[in-house]
């Protein structure tokens, strides 16, 4: 029971990290219609900026601010310099261009920081574990990630559903031309939305830095799962991104934790773990296929 609870918490933690990435991706795709493969690079930029700031100042707050600022700034520069030219082009061009951006960012990071991974310490205040239930100790830092993820979800909900900018974002998602006709500077709106997406990706990068190592190519590792989340949740839907992300996080973690154990009853250790890991990875795609079978446009389609 304690084990299951700990695994569920792990799943939720992975889920909210995915949510931060998926929210940006889905906003950009839903509103601007751009497939941005380089979204993971912004996550990497955030993580690197925070790691460098943390090692040179030793302050977690400075690291957080540096990571967020760098990701948002780089995101907006990328939008201004590259993506702006791609809105009217078809998706294949966008995929090609943003794939080029991935290579650009990866090589850039190698030139700037070398190939060795950087390591960030967990902030002093968030070290150690806390007893969430009798017999279940859980790292405070991972709980903090869950809390931040849920707060961001709430913040995004308020921003999108209750503010004027949010109204434009929602309107822009469905009736782009109408919004433009009403005199809204759609270009600026796009840059801001992209900046927000980059900011969220950066936040995910900053927060995962102390858990994983900060390394070149870290964005691609999580990007595929993020796309799965977007597809499951419904393209363009932030609510879908939240539920999709938590669902994917839980399914991935629980399968990874329990399938090998079940298979071990019928086969040898290393084979069971290999098959188990494979089935667990497949599980997420299977989930995606099931969701698409029942709801072809995702759980919470934005343009319904």
């Amino acid at each position, binding site marked *: 029971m304690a084990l299951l609870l700990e*695994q569920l918490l*792990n799943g939720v933690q992975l889920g909210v990290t995915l949510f931060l990435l998926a929210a940006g991706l889905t906003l950009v795709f839903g509103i601007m219609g751009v497939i941005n493969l380089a979204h993971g690079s912004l996550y990497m930029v955030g993580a690197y900026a925070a790691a460098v700031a943390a090692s040179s100042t030793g302050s977690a707050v400075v690291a957080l601010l540096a990571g967020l600022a760098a990701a948002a700034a780089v995101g907006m520069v990328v939008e201004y310099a590259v993506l702006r030219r791609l809105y009217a082009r078809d998706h294949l061009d966008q995929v090609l261009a943003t794939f080029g951006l991935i290579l650009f960012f990866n090589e850039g990071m190698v030139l700037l920081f070398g190939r060795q991974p950087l390591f960030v310490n967990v902030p002093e205040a968030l070290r150690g574990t806390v007893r969430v239930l009798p017999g279940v100790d859980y790292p405070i830092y991972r709980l903090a990630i869950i809390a931040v993820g849920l707060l961001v979800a709430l913040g995004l909900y308020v921003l999108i559903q209750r503010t004027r900018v949010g109204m434009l974002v929602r309107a822009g998602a469905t009736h782009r031309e109408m919004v433009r006709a009403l005199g809204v500077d759609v270009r600026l709106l796009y840059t801001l939305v992209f900046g927000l997406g980059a900011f969220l990706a950066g936040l995910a990068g900053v927060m995962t830095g102390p*858990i994983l190592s900060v390394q070149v190519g870290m964005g691609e590792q999580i990007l595929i799962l993020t796309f799965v989340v977007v597809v499951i949740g419904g393209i363009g839907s932030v609510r879908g991104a939240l539920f999709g992300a938590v669902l994917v996080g839980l399914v991935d973690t629980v399968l990874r934790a329990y399938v090998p154990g079940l298979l071990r009853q019928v086969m040898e250790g*290393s084979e069971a773990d290999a098959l188990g890991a494979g089935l667990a990875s497949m599980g997420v795609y299977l989930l995606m296929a099931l969701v698409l079978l029942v709801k072809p446009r995702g759980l919470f389609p934005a343009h319904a």
Partner: protein
Amino acid sequence: MNLNRRGLLATGAALGLGASSLARPSLAQGAPLKIGMITTLSGAGGYIGQDIRDAFQLAMEMEGGKLGGTPVQLLVEDDGFRPGQGKQVAERFMKNERVRLLTGIIFSNILGAVVGDVLDAGGIYVSPNASPSNLAGRECHKNFWSVAWQNDSLHESAGQLANNLGQKKMFILAPNYQAGRDALTGFKRLYKGQVAGEVYTRLDQTDYAAEMAQIRAAAPDGVYQFHPGGLGITFLRQYVQAGLLANIPMTLASPSMDATTLSAVGDAAVGINLTSQWNSDLDVPASKRFVAAFQAKYNRIPTFYAQQSFDTALAIGAALKGTGGKVDDTETFYRAMKPASFESTRGKFSFGANNHPVQDWWAIRVENVAGKPALVTKDRVLTDHGDVYAAQCKF
């Protein structure tokens, strides 16, 4: 007349030989012997490749661009942690650059993709790290050399150390690939206690939260894990973050705890026990010279990977001295390489019947030295230890 003619022939032959032996060094000076190094320079294992490359180049530099008196040129390429890419680089090296001597691979899965092609083409491979069990036993090859260790030995020594430390119930983990399976097999071979849990992680895994939960639930006396390079750093940091290190000690083999891992994990690592064939504080003159030269040139403490690569360069140097700088005749190379007539940085070193090392293993503990965590050598765990596969090897 007859005698004269024979004399003339003999003189001519002698002149011919003389001319060719005169011509050879000048040719060698014009084109140094190319050694191909395929290693992992990107991703979480990137620092290992860097150490392998840097130490090999250091050995060449200390001899003025030569190894064993032969001028050599080192071609270095990144395998990107991908077996396919390693294979392509090897093909390029052998076809375009006419390289016949290769080295550098870190990961056993990449070695597995490369080494068959190299050996089939009549090339020689000298491993500074990866040494999977298949190449030590039935599939052993006269032209495959390991200067590091046979994969299992690392873990056998750790199993012995766990016995010495009185750990009765261990939870063991490794990534699911050749070296990872070798690791747990090797550990269990000498470990006498009970295995509380055995888990194979994915080689590309970065979050070990699920495994941490399993370890916590199993409540063992100790944890043995083999995660080389950045994987190990990540694993250990998450182990510390989960609050496990304070309650469940870790016993390791060197790939999970080297100088780089240590500086990334910091004070939290104090108290961890591990085994290695070498440590930077070993009281061996050759090792002291190597550590000093490495630190002077690269301004960091060499990892044991660097040491292995340095020894690889020395071993190749000793063989080249024996063959006069040639690598085309693999039989001659074999005879020159086998005695391991170089001054190893680990002191005693010899090649077993299967071209894999026979050497001593040391217990090492992470301790606070002058306020900083450092790897401190304790006592010997195993003496003149070879591997169990040597008996199956027939050239």
